[in-house]
């Protein structure tokens, strides 16, 4: 109890002069304090830059895209420059391909996720390989998925098709759905499974009607986020559904999609095409952000 209790003694700074009672920071303490201020300032600046980028992107999209947003844009199909074309066929194509891709990816992804969480706990080497492969697919560059489906479905059939575009998107979404489903099912307490089994329910019944039902919310979130990811993806569609200037709902023919239309029009030298590209970009971004915001808001409650 005889030791000094001033902070100076613990932080290594000495008392200055004879006016005891009042503590003043020494040079070392000052330096540490300054370093702390600098680090704080720099990291706040770094975060602000990221926020600024988001604001800048939204601002660019709104200022360039809003001008072209009209009823005609979403009802007219794409056309030659100067003909007052819109993006209707691209929007329809995007919805069709993303929808079909989700129909393919969601069941397979759910099943695989269930396998990993229910049968593939510790000690199952096959499951850990599947987990690793899913991670690898998730980080595979999306353009390679396009090349893969091109080799797999476009070359053998001899033509580009909306169906192969949907398959490429499904391959992209599959690992996302697998991993979120697994994570969400792992959160379900084991007691729930034991309770089901004790009541005499078969394992599949326990999994589907108890575990999956109680993890419903998280699993839906994962599927919706995968949907948002697919909606904005361009690279895999370049080599699979190719894009189409006319309105087409035939899955076996080349099909337009919003990201491809943006890609084709953004580099064009016609003013109205560039305008359409920005309007399309605005639509895609706000669609994707809307899904994300909805998911985040609903998962908070």
């Amino acid at each position, binding site marked *: 109890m005889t030791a000094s209790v001033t902070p100076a003694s*613990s*932080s290594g700074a000495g008392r200055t002069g004879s006016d005891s009672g009042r503590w003043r920071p020494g040079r070392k303490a000052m330096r*540490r304090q300054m*370093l702390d201020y600098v*680090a*704080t300032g720099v*990291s*706040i*600046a*770094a*975060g602000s*830059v*990221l*926020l600024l*980028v*988001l604001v*800048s*992107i939204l601002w*660019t*999209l709104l200022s360039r895209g809003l001008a072209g947003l009209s009823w005609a844009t979403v009802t007219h199909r794409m056309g030659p420059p100067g003909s007052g074309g819109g993006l209707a066929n691209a929007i329809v194509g995007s919805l069709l391909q993303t929808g079909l891709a989700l129909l393919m990816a969601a069941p*397979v992804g759910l*099943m*695989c996720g269930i*396998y*990993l969480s229910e049968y593939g706990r510790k000690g199952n080497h096959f*499951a850990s390989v599947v987990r690793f*492969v*899913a*991670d*690898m*697919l998730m*980080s*595979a*560059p*999306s*353009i*390679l998925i396009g*090349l*893969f489906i091109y*080799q*797999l479905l476009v070359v053998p059939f001899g033509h580009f098709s909306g169906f192969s575009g949907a398959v490429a998107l499904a391959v992209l979404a*599959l690992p996302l759905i*697998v991993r979120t489903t697994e994570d969400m099912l792992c959160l379900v307490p084991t007691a729930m499974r034991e309770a089901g089994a004790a009541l005499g329910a078969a*394992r*599949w019944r326990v*999994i589907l009607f108890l575990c999956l039902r109680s993890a419903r919310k998280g699993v839906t979130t994962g599927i919706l986020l995968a949907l*948002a990811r697919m909606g*904005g993806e*361009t*690279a895999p569609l370049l080599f699979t559904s190719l894009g189409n200037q006319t309105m087409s709902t035939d899955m076996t023919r080349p099909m337009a999609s919003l*990201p491809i239309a*943006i890609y084709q029009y953004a580099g064009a030298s016609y003013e109205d095409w560039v305008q359409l590209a*920005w309007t399309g*970009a605005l639509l*895609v*971004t706000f669609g*994707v*952000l809307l899904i994300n*915001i909805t998911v*985040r808001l609903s998962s908070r409650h």
Partner: protein
Amino acid sequence: MTPVLRSSHRKAGFDTVFHGLLLICSLLVLAMLGGLILLMATGGWQAFARFGLSFFTKASWNPVRDVYGVLAPLLGTLVSTLIAMLIAVPMAFGTAFWLTYIASGRFSSIVGTTIQLLAAVPSIIFGMWGFQTIVPFIARDVQPFLNHHFRHVPGLGPIVSGPPVGTGLVTSGIVLAVMVAPFITAVMVDVFGAVPPMLRESAYGLGATRWEMMRKIVVPWSRNGMIGAIVLGMGRALGETMAVTFIIGNVTTVGWSLFAPRSTVASLIALQFPESPEGSIRLSSLMALGFILMLLSCVSLVLARCLRGKRQ
């Protein structure tokens, strides 16, 4: 007795079917990656066999003479990813530090959500945004300034020289950086959040400032997780196509300048594919490029896995 038995038989029967169904779906995931790698390798075989080692050492990408080398796009990918990481890592680290330990709870959750939204923006939008804002900025402000002041500095001159067009490795590095930084930030926030509060409180109790607590307690504790996050972000930057295609300039040359138009593996594939007829050596070269890109991406993931696994 009999009905009970029969029903339990039926249950066991469906359980096996269910298990089998799940197994098939898991096998499908395996088959996808296997098929992806296999088709890339077989597609690119023609190019590997024809050009041999010169495929990796030659910089020319010459469709007229049908001679292809991957050095230019490969260097472009590696250098632009390096620049992106040099910018993104400090930015993500700072943001994560701000969000976890400096900002107040409510504010940090709002900013955190906003930054996560940035991670959800489609990559083609980043490309258009970069073309609209970053390219003119580099061409009009940065390049003339650097050219004027550093052109005659030995060592630095060749790096900053180049026509002021604005497209190039630095531009794509910047756009890639703001693209992957939100992703790295999100993982880092999770990793920092997992540091036991008792350790941090002990540091404060010993009189450490916030930055000292960060540097001496949090960073050593979460080093592996941070490296894992960085490597995963790097994997994304390596394979990015749409953002880069708009702003890299797409010229297959090799040189010292960071401001001259270049090309990357993914952008070259995207641009050359429509002009490459099926079965041609050109398409095969693109497939070979894809195979190399896949290898790069796999290596970065395995690296991330190893570094992260060490902690447990």
